[in-house]
């Protein structure tokens, strides 16, 4: 995850005085403190600062959100929402961490299906067949 001081791996920093409009696609980490309208796609991490406003759909590997996002979030791994985070849109992520005070207005879907339990197959027909089989065995 993005931590303080991890700036040396950051490819893009959008400062508070900057407004970006359009499709923002990058391979590296992104730190947002300003405003973005459009879409954001990165194969790495995104950190959304407390003063930032994002009007965009986001695709990223990991995300740490402290600001406002109006758009859908598609996070492949972990999404971390701090107390000041405000999300107006749907969330898709594998791991979700929400601090108390964070706001979510939208659907939330967990994408990790690996640990999903398998439903046991005990249909009524099978139960009847088993009962009949037992009765036949007893009479014999």
């Amino acid at each position, binding site marked *: 995850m993005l931590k303080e001081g991890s700036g040396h791996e950051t490819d*893009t920093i959008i*400062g508070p005085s*900057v*407004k970006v*409009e359009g499709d923002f*696609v990058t391979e590296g980490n992104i730190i947002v403190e300003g405003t973005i309208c*459009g879409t954001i796609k990165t194969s790495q991490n995104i950190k959304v600062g407390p003063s930032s406003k994002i009007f965009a759909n986001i695709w990223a590997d990991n995300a740490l959100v402290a600001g406002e996002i109006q758009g859908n979030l598609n996070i492949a791994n972990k999404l971390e929402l701090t107390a000041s985070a405000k999300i107006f849109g749907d969330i898709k992520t594998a791991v979700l961490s929400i601090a108390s005070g964070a706001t979510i207005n939208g659907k939330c879907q967990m994408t990790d299906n690996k640990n999903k339990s398998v439903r046991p197959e005990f249909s009524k027909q099978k139960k009847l067949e088993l009962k009949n089989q037992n009765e036949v065995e007893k009479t014999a």
Partner: protein
Amino acid sequence: MYYYIYDNFLTEKKYQGIISKIESRLTDLGINGKIIRMSTFKNLSKTLNEDIAKGVKTIVVVGNDRTLNQLINLIDNLNLTIGLIPLGPDNNIAKLMGIPEGEAACDVLSSRIIQSLHLGLINKKYFFITYLELPSDNVFLNCDENYFINVSDYHDVISISNIFWGEAADKIPLSNNSGYINLIIKHTKKRLFQVKKENFSYFKTKTIELTSDRSVPILLIDEKRIIKTPVIISITRTKLNLIVGKKRFIS
């Protein structure tokens, strides 16, 4: 064969002593060659390109950043090795490349460590090695034809660089000579009776289109030249081969 180009300002008397020392050191090292002096009245480009066609492989610039920048814009074919003997003021490129000033640069030249450098390109015509600076007032930046950047504060300073050494270099993870253009926007927040706060925005792109509804002066650091908008800035595919020192800051 070595080919030496002396800048115009080296005709000044104060440089005569150091030039004779450099020339004798070059002779000792066996790397002396033809000398040409830059002049406002001479068409250096024609002479230079004729000599390159005859088989010159190494051109050594004796002067400063401006001289080197002028040279790369004079030659048609960049598949040459360029050397640098820094003399005079404004020798930032030499410092970054680990080339000592004056006579000591001759030893760097003879050791011949070659570093390939990307070049910045303005309007598909004009080359630059380092960076350019402009005020953010009414400037619109279109990066990679994908997204626009609007700078809300007109006190901000925009730097567009291939190689950068300004104060931002310590604060943000710049990638010099990476084949990308670094776009740095410096924002200063001033408040009465408070320490001014600086923060930087940083983008990595392939091309930047710069437009403005007004004439914006753009300062090219290498040569102190002013360019007018609209401007398209990109990075060249061909690289410049520069002879560098061991203590260089760029890899």
